[in-house]
């Protein structure tokens, strides 16, 4: 009946183990091309089963001591693995962040024994996450199969460990399924730690010095979050004798202090996972890994886990001190990292900062914790998952063709690599142009933050909105500028990469066009489940207007384009004070020699780049987090 749930968790892990043993790339590809569609099919089956059951939340696996013991064993195995890795790298203190929480959790398990409560819960939110993991994550695995071949041809210095890479990717996907479907807190903790360790392994894939440093940074930051999570869980379960996430939220809303503290600790853990300030550096450092793992971390897995748990906790955070701080930290991250993104010249870095920035907006939405903001947050998450996956794959493919991912090298990309440029255009436009995902979400988030009187968040969103538009528009302008480098570029993108890109682009456009429908049939029930009662977020007037706006923004340029083709125009050279050398690209300089024209953007890198802003921001947010801990633990609120 619900066979797809254990299948989704265990099957990817088994495939991972299988891929680890196989060293022939062709066979690996064959397995992946079967396994990934199987995972997608199982997810579809889960969705169908769920809706055949009336589309109501379902609690499953109430009494499964064997599985729980297995999970406990898994926790211990993870601890041993992490400790071993840390000792080998002589980073002894990091192992403490694994040993302490694991011992606490195992100790609690022995004392309290197995509780009679559901271990798995299926509802709209977890299904949505499953769909994202299965489809976005699945497409990334397919893309990776092609990409990694080219990667090892170019990077001969990197030791060939593709079997290891694919194993981690599949285990990661399995752990994400486990994470979003679990309702038992200990299970959640286990899958949480698994994703932390998987991301650590992916980031360290190349084994270069930088990769190892960055991977350990990611490890300690995420394990720190995991430690907070474990503390929260142990404190709550011991005090309240309940073991599920739903019970936690319920208790917290009822004013149980242990629950409120646990919510705060879990929200803190989510900040680390969602790479919010001051923990943003691990996600930036993750860029050293091959592109598919960046795509995986940024879009389908890892960071979305943090957002997911915050959405779950949203009703418990609404109107509390924790919620206020989390919203503020999210808003601050949204604004500041978008400023840093303006200063980046490396396309992947821009994507990385924009991910953190968008996650910041989602965190702010969750922190405010009203139905409107969760509505906005869910849409942001969907748009972001598709768009970021598309963008990372596209930038990766562009890099393979141009041998650069410097933004300035993308000048006139539309005329040199038209297919990739169009995909890039769709990915960027979907992120911020009216009336697509980002804007309507911002609209909703702004209104809700006014309603909840959160002045700081209002200001952060308003200013962050301006800076976000700036860096995206700048990039779009770069792509469409009529090229001056006329040398043709060969598009060497592989077929499986193209398939993945096309599917993403189609999904993006479809989501833009259909989102009023998605909102009605999917997101509204999701909100009703999360908040119990629920009134319409967007009046039908707004919805109708959005449909009109979508039509206008799609149709006006199209009609203008078609009709302007008939207009009679007179083409002239561009104006250069009469100093053109007979074409648009060259002018006569002051020595009377022809000189090539080069137009470049200003990035203000020294003023607002990472070096100027990151540390002050980290300090500010760390201070805010300390204050939050003091206030909540001290019992003022």
């Amino acid at each position: 009946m619900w066979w797809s749930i254990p299948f989704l968790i265990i099957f990817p892990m088994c495939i991972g183990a299988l891929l680890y043993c196989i060293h022939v790339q062709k066979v690996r590809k064959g397995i992946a091309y079967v396994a990934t569609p199987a995972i997608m099919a199982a997810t579809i089956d889960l969705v169908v089963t769920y809706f055949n059951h009336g589309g109501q939340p379902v609690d499953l696996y109430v009494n499964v001591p064997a599985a729980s013991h297995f999970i406990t064993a898994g926790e211990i195995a993870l601890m041993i693995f992490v400790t071993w890795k840390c000792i080998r790298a002589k980073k002894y203190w990091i192992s403490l962040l694994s040993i302490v929480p694991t011992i606490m959790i195992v100790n609690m398990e022995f004392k309290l024994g197995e509780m009679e409560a559901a271990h798995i819960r299926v509802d709209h939110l977890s299904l949505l996450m499953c769909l994202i993991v299965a489809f976005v994550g699945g497409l990334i695995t397919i893309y990776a199969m092609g990409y990694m071949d080219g990667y090892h041809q170019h990077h001969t210095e990197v030791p060939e460990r593709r079997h290891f890479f694919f194993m981690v990717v599949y285990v990661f996907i399995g752990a994400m399924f486990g994470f979003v479907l679990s309702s038992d807190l200990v299970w959640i903790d286990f899958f949480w730690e698994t994703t932390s360790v998987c991301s650590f392994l992916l980031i360290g894939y190349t084994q270069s010095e930088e990769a190892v440093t960055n991977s350990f940074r990611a490890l300690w930051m995420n394990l720190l979050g995991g430690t907070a999570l474990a503390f929260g869980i142990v404190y709550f379960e011991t005090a309240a004798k309940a073991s599920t996430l739903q019970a936690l939220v319920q208790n917290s809303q009822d004013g149980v202090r242990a629950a409120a503290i646990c919510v705060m600790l879990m929200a803190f853990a989510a900040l680390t996972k969602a790479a919010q300030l001051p923990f943003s550096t691990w996600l930036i450092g993750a860029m050293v890994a091959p592109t598919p793992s960046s795509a995986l971390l940024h879009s389908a897995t890892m960071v979305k886990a943090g957002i997911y748990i915050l959405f779950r906790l949203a009703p418990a955070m609404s109107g509390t001190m924790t919620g206020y701080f989390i919203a503020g930290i999210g808003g601050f991250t949204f604004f500041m990292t978008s400023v840093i993104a303006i200063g980046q010249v490396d396309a992947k870095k821009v994507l990385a900062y924009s991910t953190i920035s968008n996650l910041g907006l989602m965190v702010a939405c969750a922190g405010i914790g009203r139905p409107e903001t969760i509505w906005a947050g869910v849409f942001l998450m969907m748009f972001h998952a598709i768009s970021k996956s598309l963008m990372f794959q596209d930038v990766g493919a562009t890099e393979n063709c141009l041998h650069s991912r410097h933004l300035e090298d993308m000048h006139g990309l539309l005329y040199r690599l038209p297919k990739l440029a169009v995909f890039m255009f769709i990915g960027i436009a979907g992120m911020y142009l009216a009336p697509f995902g980002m804007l309507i979400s911002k609209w909703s988030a702004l209104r809700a933050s006014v309603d909840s009187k959160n002045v700081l968040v209002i200001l952060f969103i308003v200013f962050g909105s301006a800076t976000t538009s700036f860096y995206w528009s700048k990039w779009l302008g770069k792509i469409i500028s009529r090229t001056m480098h006329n040398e043709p570029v060969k598009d060497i993108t592989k077929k499986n990469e193209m398939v993945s890109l096309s599917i993403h682009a189609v999904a993006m456009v479809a989501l833009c066009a259909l989102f009023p429908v998605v909102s009605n049939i999917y997101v509204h029930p999701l909100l009703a489940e999360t908040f119990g009662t629920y009134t319409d977020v967007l009046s039908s007037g707004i919805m109708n207007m959005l449909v009109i706006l979508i039509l206008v923004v799609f149709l006006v340029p199209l009609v203008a384009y078609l009709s302007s083709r008939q207009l009679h125009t007179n083409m002239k050279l561009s104006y250069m004070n009469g100093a053109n050398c007979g074409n648009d690209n060259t002018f006569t300089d002051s020595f009377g020699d022809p000189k090539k024209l080069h137009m470049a953007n200003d990035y203000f890198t020294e003023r607002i780049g990472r070096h100027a802003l990151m540390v002050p921001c980290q300090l500010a947010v760390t201070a805010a987090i300390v204050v939050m801990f003091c206030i909540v633990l001290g019992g003022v609120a």
Partner: protein
Amino acid sequence: MRILMPILFLLLAPLAGGLLDGMDRKISARMQRRVGPPILQPFYDVQKLFAKQRIVVTNSQTFLMITYMVLIIFTGCMFYSGVDMLMCFFMLSTAGIFLYFSAVVTDSPYSYIGGQRELFQEMCCEPAVLLTALGFYILEGSFQTSDLIKADRSAILALPGFFVAFLFILTIKMRKSPFDESTSHHPHQELVKGVTTELGGSNLALFQITEWYENVLMLSVVALFILNKNPWSILCAVLVVLATYFLEILIDNTSARMKSQKMLQLSWAVTIAAAGVNLVILILVR
């Protein structure tokens, strides 16, 4: 009303915008001790531009320019039909991006620099513009412009800080000195004509008309600060709008162009100090 007002906007806004432009030139000329052109000169200019051939550097300029114009006019019609103000402002910034596109797509040096600066100007304005919509929302509990004009008292009484911030960025929006970063009034400057450098003939006419629409739209937001359910407030709003426009002309004629980073600092500082402080007070009081 919902149908009539947008149609009136569609028909009358270019007339009003053109007349204001004509007055602008006349008053500026008088300030500089010149006689100045007749009031209707802008209309003659546009008429003549339409008669000229359409000169482009690259063909896609034209369709981007048309899109820019249609989206601005559409936004204005939305605003006048009484719908959501915040959504209007989002549309406005989307429309602005097409102007940027039409400038950078040419890859012509002056046009490209103008485009960069246009984008920069957008970034300076956006916070104040969005905050204005939020200020109205806090005050009246609605984003609908049709609700806002039915208020008991003029919004400016509770939103003076928002008004100041909006006036400040209005100079940027109208591309007037000291913030004429993206397109200068005089082609002999370092920027030549910025975003409009490569717009020739009827494309330049389109830009001119769009600017009239945009100015009228922005001044309508100024009027919204004054309007209330009392019919006399309409007269009052007209006077305030005219005074605002005169102020813009005065500033334009008495200041030199500012560096763009300075503009950013200044406009954001004013936004925080005026609109931000007003916002805090408003939320505390309510």
